[in-house]
């Protein structure tokens, strides 16, 4: 199979065959709360996938701007889940090691789940700030709000069934 066809099929496998029925109406883009910052738009991103344009579909700021609000998904007149397309592309980008802060955050998040089964917000934030020091000001600001209220925990949360969780992440994530 040609490379662009291969990419298209991988997206369809992850996000659903119905993506093929996209009529490029733009309802998804019009519904998106961060559409004004996106280039390519969600509509265009789906077109890129269907054209097999892997490079453009994986290397862009659009993926990191999706808030997972699912408004595109509940509105799509074709029953496509545009958010699932974004997730599929993020999944592929993470596997291919595409650089980016958004992907870095997701990877740290998933790693903490894989190793501990739960998210501990403070250690996760700490790890993220090592790769994204620019987030420090915001994190300090929030920390100053939350710490006096007792809403920051130093505990590292863990489940007992860590082997099982690890299997879920590693075996189902292939």
């Amino acid at each position, binding site marked *: 199979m040609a490379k662009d066809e291969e990419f298209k099929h991988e997206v369809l496998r992850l996000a659903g065959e119905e993506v093929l029925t996209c009529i490029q109406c733009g309802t998804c883009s019009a519904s998106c709360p961060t559409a004004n910052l996106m280039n390519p738009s969600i509509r265009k991103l789906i077109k890129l996938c269907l054209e097999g344009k892997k490079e453009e579909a994986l290397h862009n700021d659009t993926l990191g701007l999706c808030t997972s609000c699912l*408004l595109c998904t509940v509105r799509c007149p074709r029953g496509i889940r545009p958010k699932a397309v974004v997730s599929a592309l993020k999944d592929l980008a993470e596997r291919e090691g595409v650089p980016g802060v958004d992907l870095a955050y997701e990877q740290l998040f998933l790693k903490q789940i894989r190793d501990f*089964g739960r998210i501990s917000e403070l250690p996760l934030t700490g790890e993220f700030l090592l790769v994204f020091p620019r987030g420090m000001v915001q994190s300090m600001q929030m920390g100053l709000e939350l710490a006096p209220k007792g809403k920051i*925990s130093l*505990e590292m949360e863990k489940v007992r*069934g860590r082997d099982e969780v690890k299997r879920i992440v590693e*075996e*189902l994530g292939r």
Partner: protein
Amino acid sequence: MKLAYYPGCVSRSTGKDMDASTRAVCKALGIELVELEDWNCCGATHVSNELVATGLAARNMAQTDLEIMTSCSICYSNLRSAVLNLEDLETRKKVNAVLDKKYSGARVRHALDVILECLAGNDERIAVPLKELKVAPYYGCLLTRPGGIYSPEFPTILEKLIKTLQAEPIDFRLKTFCCGGPIFMSQEEAANDIAFRILSEARKAGAEVIVTVCPLCQLMLDAKQKALEQKHGTKIEIPVLYVTQLAGIALGLGPDELGLNMNAVSPMAMMEKVYERMTE
């Protein structure tokens, strides 16, 4: 009523008030909560592989035969999405192949729905009617999405609860608009702009309090409110309560039980108004 309780990861840190108020309200309503024995993270909005996210949810749901209740809309949406995905037998087979306890179906409810059911037609439990309190019902995204239970764009359940507590839901245009929370770590500015838009709209609409059903919405609108006020040189000063905190106030529970001292924007001035109006 006896329910399995899925607190979710934030219950241990930024959502401690959500957890405390959920437990207190359920106790007051005679609901017995059995915490899932070894619950794991639902993946929030950060697990891109759908099968992994489904597997994480399935592991939680396989731990009980009871109906599962959570107060977090993100957990709720993820469990519901997984229930839908697991209707596909191929998916269920793949997921069950890696689980110790196998998934065989589940029923998931949000605390909002449970509280409303318990309070319906049972007004004498409302010790502190929230008379004339103007409440902005803020749903955010994930209570109602994916669709199938509530209208994903024009839900009314929160307004129903607000009225049951004898408060006044305001007409809140942005009630199902995203708070920006899921991207606030890496896309600070984009997320802040969205959160500020929602807060400004609530101010304009005359809200005395915003009520949320999601800990991330609460974090964005409450913990960031002061920073957003400073950035935009304006005052918002609207407390942002979880639905469980608001219900708890009406049920006559105390600030400590409800974690009201943990809110960044203090709800105490609002509470005083509530008590004043009650005795008028």
